[in-house]
């Protein structure tokens, strides 16, 4: 049977990918941020999981605002990156696992999460940057992927609690797949930031740290907040952090925190990195 061996959280902002491409990761501004990923990279290199499910939001590459699915899942054998409008060279394509994805979609829909299934899906920086920061750059990536897209762009968005419950259903879906796959889930995005309006530039370190503690030990503190309450603290784009709850819901009750890293600012944001495993680890 497939099993979840861990969950990670990471930022996915474009600046992270640019810093990697431009060779800046050891520059003063970036060094502490990137160095804090090393234990997670080591853990991934050691455990060699078979599949990573990346929970992220599309920022206008695969989905335009003409059709915005609340939850969507890639169900293909390959996913391409592409130009997002500023002419960056796309990464090499990512392998999918269509059989596994379709099983997840079917199980989730049976559990009343009505996923949009995507047989073609361009993956943008929200997906690509977590892959690059966790695995480094590759011609052939060392792991299969499942993109899971949450709408955090055009309101109404799903609630934080709904994201948590999607995670719980995802656990059931993963654990009912007959193949022996080791699966990791990445909740990406956030943390506090707001890109526009007179309040642009907010980073609330206290709120971010409280969110990280909540994700580890008491997810209800975070998911009981309304989206308006989260936006008030974390900003209009900080709302992305609700996607971490999909990862957390999938891990189940108690977890062990193997690694905890926070840095601010990177670009406009607070950035949180977690590595969580099951209680027995």
């Amino acid at each position, binding site marked *: 049977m497939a099993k979840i061996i861990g969950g990670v959280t990471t930022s996915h902002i474009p600046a992270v990918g640019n810093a990697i491409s431009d060779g800046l990761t050891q520059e003063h501004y970036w060094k*502490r941020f990137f*160095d*804090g990923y090393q*234990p997670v990279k080591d853990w991934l290199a050691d455990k060699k999981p078979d599949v990573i499910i990346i929970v992220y939001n599309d*920022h*206008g*590459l695969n989905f*335009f*605002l*003409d059709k915005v699915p609340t939850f969507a899942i890639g169900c293909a054998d390959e996913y391409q990156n*592409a*130009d*997002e*409008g*500023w*002419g960056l060279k796309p990464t090499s394509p990512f392998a999918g696992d269509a059989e596994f994805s379709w099983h997840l979609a079917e199980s989730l829909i049976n559990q009343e999460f009505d996923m949009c299934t995507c047989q073609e899906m361009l993956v943008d920086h929200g997906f690509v940057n977590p892959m690059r920061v966790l695995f480094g750059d590759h011609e052939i990536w060392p792991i299969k992927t499942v993109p899971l897209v949450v709408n955090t*762009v*055009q*309101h*109404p968005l799903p609630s934080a609690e709904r994201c948590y419950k999607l995670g719980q259903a995802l656990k059931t879906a993963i654990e009912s797949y007959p193949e022996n796959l080791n699966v990791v889930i990445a909740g990406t995005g956030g943390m506090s930031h*707001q*890109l*526009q*309006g*007179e*309040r*642009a*530039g907010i*980073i609330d*370190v206290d709120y971010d*740290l409280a969110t990280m503690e909540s994700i580890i030990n008491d997810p209800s503190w975070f998911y009981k907040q*309304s*989206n*308006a309450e989260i*936006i*008030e603290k974390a*900003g*209009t*784009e900080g709302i992305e952090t609700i996607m971490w709850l999909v990862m957390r819901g999938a891990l189940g009750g108690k977890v062990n*925190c193997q*690694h*905890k*890293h*926070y*840095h*601010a*600012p990177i*670009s*406009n944001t*607070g950035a949180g990195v977690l590595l969580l495993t099951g209680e027995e680890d």
Partner: protein
Amino acid sequence: MVWKKHDYDDIPGTYVFDGERAHSSYALNKLFYSFNNVECRDEFNAAPAAYCDKFGLNEKQKKLVVEQQFLNILRAGTNIYYMAKFCIPRGVSVQDAGAAFQGISGDEFKAKLLKKRENLEQRLEREGGYWNG
């Protein structure tokens, strides 16, 4: 017909991209979305006003785009992620956009952000359990 009020409407200095904004700025966002495609970027650059007409922008929206009034394009309800496809290749970062809302320079804005870095290690030390280099 009325746009329903939301509890996030009262957050100061904050404009949530919801149905009301998405509806009024749809043509603008659609135009910027087309810039994912390099041929579309070239077509726009060759004849900006004609390109705006093709996407059905009204006269006011067209003026904002042709004159590259980035701040007012955002004020017109455009989504920042779509706006980024227009402003970033023109040397205006999302930080510059944020700064413009406050009437300060991009460098001043970045300096304000960097303040968050001060005493961060000590803060995390107090919190406990954080990797600290």
